[in-house]
């Protein structure tokens, strides 16, 4: 009896412990995720990994990121508050008025995009270095490409924020404080110097959308052009030389028609040096029609989604195209005011210069594909053509009661009829016309009477079907650069370089020197200061 009992107890105990100790493994089993343990093994996986180096460029076409921030603090674009619409806690008005603060989300988004790019480049460089050590022959080319991309991220960091942690080694896990602008400048320059001759020079399908020698030279040319701002020591001769290297490379030339560079299918442009290829199917995120067009523009373009009515063009900037004095050329009717004809149709009420580059804008009355007028039932009483949708270059106020149809809209990239919120146009990062203007400016800075400088500018003007300039001045050069490079993220740099960043435009009053110094740099985002105790804020914020 006793033994039976003991045996039973023993059996129970054994049974329980068997059950118990067999199931204590707590490793996570993955099904729909990859980790470094089960990825980056095949060539295909590696190429997919390399692709991540370019993913951060996807932020270029979004609202509230690098491009938006650069444009909205310049005299090109503005987002007015239309009643309750587009106030967003004042962050948009702050950008225009140069009163922005470190908690403005635009800056954190920008920082995130740029440092996300740096980080990915560091990681991939580390991975390809390991492959190189194992004797992979193509690793060197990939590493050069990644260093070029990283140099571009750091160029934008240095240009926008002025300072930032300089991290180049993926395995270095120490949190770093900010390097100075000079330190970043030196790093970018030395990196580009090291790789510019290793990068591919072909202009074909293998290099489309990738970092080439020409793209790297474009970065370095811009670095040198603005060197006076960045370091106090101008480098115009070097800028001119880099631009000339691209020109002499003979891979690019001006397209006969300006707007072809921005067509829905602009992959064939001979002028675009480096683009980020967007696609409505494969690579969404280029949202300009949503960001700029009016709600009722949906019916004009038959978009699958309703636009948001945000970004407009600053009135003076729009006017710089049609002004016959500062931009001489053939005259004709242009949209400026609010006049209507007997049919209550808006008419181009002013004579002005018919610059070919007015294709940069959507302005005037809007018609549906059927030819009917597009309707905006919530029109303001002041609008003389009633409910008809038309974009007037005039913007009445920054807010709170800005006209919903006020301001010309961005028309730079062609909008696809029946399009989705994601455009298929490829985003132009560097363009040959910019290179010509860089060389022109550098030469003109070295010598105001430089003949080649004037010739280069007039190449641009002639292509735009306006009258060539007789001579170059700071004002007419800056204005010409503005007309050509509208919405291509150069304007903030240009205004700062020309010392015009403190000027009044739109609803922003003229600012004193201290203010210009402060707002010429973006604030280090509050979230980044929260996350990294070694970071300090830029002066004045």
């Amino acid at each position, binding site marked *: 009896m006793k033994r039976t009992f003991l045996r*039973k107890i023993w059996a*129970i105990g054994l049974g*329980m412990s068997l*059950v*118990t100790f067999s199931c204590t493994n*707590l490793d*996570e*089993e*993955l*099904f*729909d*995720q*990859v980790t470094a343990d089960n*990825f980056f093994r095949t060539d295909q996986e590696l190429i*997919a*990994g*390399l*692709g*991540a180096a370019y*993913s951060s460029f996807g932020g270029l076409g979004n609202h509230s990121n690098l491009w938006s921030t650069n444009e909205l603090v310049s005299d090109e674009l503005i987002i007015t508050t*239309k*009643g*309750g*619409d587009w106030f*967003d*806690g004042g962050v948009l008005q702050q950008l225009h008025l140069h009163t922005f603060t470190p908690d403005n989300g635009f800056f954190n988004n920008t920082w995130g995009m740029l440092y*996300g790019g740096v*980080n*990915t480049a*560091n*990681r991939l460089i580390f991975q390809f270095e390991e492959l190189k050590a194992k004797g992979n022959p193509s690793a060197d080319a990939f590493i050069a490409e990644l260093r070029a991309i990283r140099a571009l991220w750091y160029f934008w960091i240095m240009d926008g924020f002025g300072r930032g*942690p300089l*991290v180049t080694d993926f395995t*270095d*896990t*120490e949190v*770093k404080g900010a390097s100075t602008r000079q330190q970043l400048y030196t790093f970018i320059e030395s990196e580009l110097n090291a790789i510019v001759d290793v990068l591919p020079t072909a202009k074909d*399908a*293998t290099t489309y959308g990738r970092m080439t020698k020409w793209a790297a030279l474009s970065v370095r040319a811009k670095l040198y052009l603005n060197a006076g701002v960045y370091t106090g020591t101008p480098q115009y001769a070097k800028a001119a030389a880099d631009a000339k290297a691209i020109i002499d490379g003979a891979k690019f030339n001006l397209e006969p028609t300006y707007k072809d560079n921005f067509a829905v299918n602009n992959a064939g442009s001979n002028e675009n040096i480096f683009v980020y*290829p967007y*696609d409505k199917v*494969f*690579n969404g995120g280029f949202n300009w029609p949503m960001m700029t067009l009016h*709600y009722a523009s949906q019916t004009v373009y038959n978009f699958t989604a309703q636009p948001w*009515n945000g970004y407009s063009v600053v009135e003076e900037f729009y006017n710089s195209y049609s002004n016959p004095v500062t931009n001489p050329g053939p005259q004709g009717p242009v949209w400026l005011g609010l006049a209507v004809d007997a049919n209550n149709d808006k008419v181009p009420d002013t004579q002005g210069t018919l610059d070919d580059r007015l294709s940069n804008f959507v302005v005037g009355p809007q018609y549906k594909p059927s030819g*009917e007028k597009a*309707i905006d*039932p*919530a029109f*303001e009483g002041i609008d003389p053509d009633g409910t008809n949708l038309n974009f007037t270059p005039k913007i009445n106020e920054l807010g*709170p*009661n800005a006209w919903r149809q006020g301001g010309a809209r961005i028309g730079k990239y062609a909008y696809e009829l029946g399009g*989705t919120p994601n455009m298929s146009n490829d985003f132009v990062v560097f363009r040959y016309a910019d290179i010509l203007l860089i060389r022109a400016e550098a030469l003109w800075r070295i010598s105001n009477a430089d003949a080649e400088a004037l010739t280069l500018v007039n190449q641009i003007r002639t292509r735009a079907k306006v009258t060539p300039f007789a001579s170059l001045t700071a004002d007419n050069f800056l204005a010409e650069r503005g007309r050509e490079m509208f919405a291509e993220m150069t304007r903030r740099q240009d205004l700062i370089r020309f010392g015009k960043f403190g000027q009044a435009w739109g609803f922003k009053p003229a600012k004193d020197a201290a203010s210009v110094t402060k707002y010429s740099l973006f604030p280090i985002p*509050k*979230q*980044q*200061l*929260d*996350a*990294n105790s070694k970071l300090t804020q830029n002066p004045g914020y």
Partner: protein
Amino acid sequence: MTKLYLFVRRYLAVLLVLGTLVSFAQERVVTGKVTSSDDGSGIPGVNILEKGSSNGTVSDSDGNFRISVGSNATLVFSFVGYQAQEVTVGSQSAINVSMQSDVTALSEVVVVGYGTQEKKEITSAVTSIKSEDFNKGTVNDPVQLLQGKVAGLNITRAGGDPNGGFNIRLRGVGTIGANAEPLVVIDGIIGGSLSTVDPNDILSIDVLKDGSAAAIYGSRGGSGVILVTTKSGKKGTTQVSYNGSYAIENVNNSIPVMTAEEYRQVPGHVDLGSTTDWLDVITRQGNAQVHNLALSGGSQSTTYRASINVRNTNGVGLKSGFEQLNGRLTLTQKALKDRATFTVNLASTTKDAQLGNAASFNYGILANPTMPIYDNTTTSPTAGGRFGGYAERDIFDFFNPLSLVEQNERDKKETRQQASLRAEYDFSDLVEGLRFAAFYSAQRESDFYGSYSKKSAKFGGNNGLGFASRSTDQRVNELFETTVNFDKNLGGADLALLAGYSYQDFYNEGFGLSGGNFVTDAFTYNNLSTALDFNNGLGSVFSYANSNKLVAFFGRANVNIGGNYFVSASARYEGSSRFGENNKWGLFPAVSAGVTLSNLIDIPSVNSLKLRASYGVTGNQPGSSYISLQKFTRTGSFFYNGVFGPSYGPQSNPNPDLKWETKAEIDFGFDFAMLNNKLTGTFDYYNRTTTDMILPVNVPQPPNLVQQTEVNIGELKNSGFELSLNYAAITKPDFTWTVGGNIGTYKTQVVSLKNDIYNFAETGVLYRSSMGAPGQSAVQTVRVKEGDPLGQLWGALYDGVNADGSYKFVDIDGDGTVDPTSDDDRTVIGNGLPSATFGFNNSFTYKHFDMNIFFNGAIGHELLNSYRGFYENNETTTIKNWNIVKTEFYDPKVTKANVNSIHVEKADFLRLNNMSIGYNVPLESGAAVRNLRFFVAGQNLFTLTNYTGVDPEVRYKDTDSDDGLAPGIERRSTYFTTRTFTFGVNLGF
């Protein structure tokens, strides 16, 4: 008293013996008197029932009674505050009964983790609600049965969406991380799905409130535990019961907006020529049918209960409702000379739901009241020619509210299956008091969605192309547990020991696809291959799968010393695959003790008094799997050699140290009964500290791969008291009145948002909860500040209206300029969390009638009324595009929408949650029908509140961002509240 009790028991035993000796099989009259054993006085109002029939009577004012009984009758004497007695009549014609007062009204059995305990032995904060105390009316979700019934347990659902779920918070907000809702355990199935249980099948629900009671559930007990026990069969009975009801439901409250007539008086209005009451257009009278048929019974060795539940509900919103079929079988069989007990539980639920479109409520409120419903033209301002004939306008953020519902389908099919087997073996013949049990359960939940927006639908219709989606999710979990119980009397002390092992794994998977561009609407979501989006590369597909598992060892020791002192200690050592590799296992201990003071000293007019104190540590799991790992994911596309290829990049930073959130809780309480047990009550004070909450913090990138890492961070403190009282106020023969109530108070403080390395907020302040479009996207309305209470609504302080129509705000920092976007001129403008919630119940019986009236409410919280924040103004956009919200606060001088303190309102409320009146049909003794009751119940009959929004109910999280840090906001798509009347019958035979 004990002596007396023994005497009565002996006396009764003699009676019983005598009764059985001389029994005659014939009907006759029995008379007698019921007296109290305390003082010998007659007790009026005692229920006297012939056992097994509905034949019964009630004692008169002197305690005398008279009843006709059949042969072999047994009489059951019952009365509130006294122990029920059974007396076999035998040959007696006079029976005098002395009723023993119920020494402890605390003698009921309470379900606790892994077992049951007598209430008098409980040393932690546990509340048990029996089915007779559940909320009345049409109740589709089991937790609704408890709404307002348990002090400290708050169950909220704003609005009356029949498919909407409830938010459950025990003792306020205990975490700002994941898993803020209590763990649900159904008949031992941990994490059981409440949708497998029909409210009709629930016997009791027990709530483990404090840390010591919940600690046996370890890393999942942090937000409290709700134990659901379903009904089962009883030995020696065979019963059939049917419960059926039909309910009608109407809109109770929405947002006041201008009528067409009022709107036409507003300067600048857009008159579209019609008069439409949009709220009327998009709602209807809802209805609900519930049928429950249950068969139960049992022989010596087998008991069973089987039930079928049918529910058919149509909500007040068009196309919102469901049809549900639920079946449940419980079978218990004894074997091996009754030493082995096997219990099988099977449950299955299928639910076909139409989800309606909550946006129709939003746009129903916004819609211009002069707009026609239909307009089939192509040129008018409301031309709906291309929108299926529904009038539409080309303005921002507007859709025809009726078209939203009628041209959009959103369907969901749910399937829930649950099976469990418990095998117990009693080893008492070998070792006295030794029992062993093994338990296995499996649960499978699947949701299958389909949605379609017609080509002509402006909302979702993809600009004339149509859009469809289908998706399915499946969640499976299996639980295996073994437990050993050992009970021993150590002379003077009873010892109860429990040890166990638990293994549970979870596997979730799903897939879905969506695309548009159809030639015809004919297929809706049933033929997705015809969507040209897939041919054009614009369709989207997804699939996923993930798993996690939990392993635990647990034990508990309960000591009962002479029925006077009680001590309990428990611990669970638990590991989870979701924890980081350096922290896979956590220990969750608890200890509690109690003393029945009334056994030791005599306190005048107090029948019993037990003091208790407890301390327990519980945990909380990460909200999802794999968050401690470094993962890569598809980051988009990349143009490579002329074609787009996928690019892969990092998705998360690794955190191998990730562990559980920890909550330590102290609870002091007492349970008492006094005034001859007429007044009973429970009081608790709790104080909880939650640390190591699992939250994403911003980290510098580089060196980190991505900008956020999930870490353990922060500290939250939480305290309050809970009181529940029950008083049998009137106990007359024909009339009884019992009144009861409960209240729980809450104080939640954000102590810290950082740890040694990371900051959730560098400056100790976070802003949450964007107000939204149009125009107020960057306006954060909630502030979270270290050292301050959780739930602060934050904004500018209203100070009238400026001449230009903008709001005038108080210059808080006194610097002469008012900047409502700066913190200098913003302040705390409300508190989103309540300071107390309460319930208040009255039940009456009068002869064969019964009536129950139940109120609940909350005080101390405010709500931000979003509708007012956007649309209660004369801004041009509002007037031209939409209708104007018109509450008592409407000020036509305001021409600029800008949310501020004027839009934050006190939301204290008292609600007549439910009220029911029933009639028990008196039945002849021995009739085939055992009981028959008719009832009528009303739910949400009225609400006393000054809040002008849809529902003053507490919002524990922001419904737009699903953010637990941002309570107190009523968003714009809140389903209207409803009022329900139910007529029903309960039939048993």
